[in-house]
């Protein structure tokens, strides 16, 4: 056995360990990404049921990492347009403190932006869209420890004005995370609070989003989510609610989404979402979706 064990050539990543990367290009540069495809069926108010099947997104991420400087460039292609997502250069001043500049995702939101981070197919709020901003160009300073993290972002807010975000996250209790953030954008301000707790295969999450539009009108959104995962199987239940002062009806959505992880790189899920309230203003009673995600 020993002689046979000596007859091995280690297949290494060019002599180093690559974190969060699948395809090494050089010692410092690697490539990763994912393919997201889906089939969606929905009920429309005029009685016409819609259906769409597509390769929803192909994302390619380039990651460059050295001891103190790292860079990320994410390109997202939806079949029609290619867009930059995270494009940043980060300087690690210490193990805790880092400074970044570039195009980066907002701190806000319990739900992830990319499909690989979602527990289900759809977003929670009216029109199945997030209530928080996405990507913007700017600079951030982040201080991260095992107990908490704190970040400040300043950047382009649209309308030729500056925006800023401040975020705090507490992770000092095992399994429990509390997040609070404030965003000041041209003409409106947003407060986002969420908390999650993981125990025995369950993940519980609660979120509150409040936006003051500055004209006396507000938007309030909140969600409650439970995910249970065991082995390769998982299931998510989500209730979400959005109240816009200028809308006649509130939006209420209930979602069930079972999922199955075929491998660490291949996930399939189904979703059934029922619009409990607001179908007249949004249009549609339900949405059924099937999704397949492959990461590389």
């Amino acid at each position: 056995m020993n002689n046979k064990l000596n007859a091995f050539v280690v297949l290494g990543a060019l002599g180093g360990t690559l974190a969060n990367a699948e395809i090494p290009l050089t010692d410092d540069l690697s490539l990763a990404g994912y393919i997201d495809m889906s089939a969606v069926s929905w009920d429309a108010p005029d009685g016409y049921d819609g259906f769409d099947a597509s390769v929803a997104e192909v994302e390619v991420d380039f990651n460059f990492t050295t001891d103190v400087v790292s860079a990320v460039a994410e390109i997202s292609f939806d079949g029609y347009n290619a867009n930059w997502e995270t494009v940043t250069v980060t300087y690690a001043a210490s193990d805790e403190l880092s400074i970044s500049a570039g195009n980066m995702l907002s701190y806000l939101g319990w739900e992830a932006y990319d499909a690989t981070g979602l527990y289900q197919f759809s977003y929670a709020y009216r029109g199945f869209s997030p209530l928080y901003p996405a990507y913007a160009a700017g600079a951030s300073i982040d201080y991260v420890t095992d107990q908490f993290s704190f970040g400040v972002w300043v950047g382009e807010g649209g309308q030729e004005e500056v925006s800023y975000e401040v975020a705090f996250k507490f992770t000092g209790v095992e399994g429990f995370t509390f997040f609070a953030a404030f965003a000041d954008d041209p003409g409106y301000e947003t407060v986002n609070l969420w908390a999650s707790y993981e125990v025995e295969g369950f993940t519980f999450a609660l979120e509150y989003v409040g936006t003051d539009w500055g004209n006396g009108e507000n938007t309030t959104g909140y969600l409650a989510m439970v995910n249970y995962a065991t082995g390769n199987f998982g299931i998510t239940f989500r209730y979400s609610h959005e109240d816009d002062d200028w809308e006649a009806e509130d939006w209420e959505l209930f979602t069930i989404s079972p999922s199955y992880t075929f491998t660490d790189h291949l996930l399939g899920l189904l979703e059934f979402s029922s619009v409990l309230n607001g179908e007249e203003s949004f249009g549609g009673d339900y949405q059924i979706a099937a999704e397949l995600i492959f990461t590389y």
Partner: protein
Amino acid sequence: MKPSRTLGLSSRVRRAAAWATLFWAVTPFVSGQTSPTVEGLSAEVRALRQTVESLQQRVSELEAQLAAVSRAPAAGPVAPAAPTPSARTKLVEEEDPSLFERLLDGMQREDPPSSRLWIDPAKWAQLKKGMTTDEVLAILGEPMFDEPSLNRRIDQVWTYRARNTETRERVIGKVKFENGRIVAIEEPTWP
């Protein structure tokens, strides 16, 4: 006559001259001619001497060229078979090895000992669910890849892989973590 620089060449020339002399001396008898006159013999000896001198001169020239090639390049021009590369081209070649050379270097590169710790079933037998990443590092060493997983209960997947040089079979082992502790172990299939 110039003294020979190489005794071996000089001795060969002398032997050649001796055989030539013998040939010319014997030829009249073989051909059936009558004995030459003394004057004729003298003429023949002179001709042989001239032949030997020219051969020795040629040998000397060849020895001089050989000595010049053996000297350092700065000593003087040499007649190469191919054009000498320019300094810039030579610099580029030294700094830019060919694809083959890079592949050969990569194949011959020694794996660091720490990268081979895991190639031992006894090491994998030490792993237990609940162990931390530091404990796994101490037992198996650095993984080849540290990647996320689409499984909600797995935060990191450490992959160790090698190829058996005899059977060409790939051997892969994985250790999966949630919150920094082992939740799953996929031990390699050993030959």
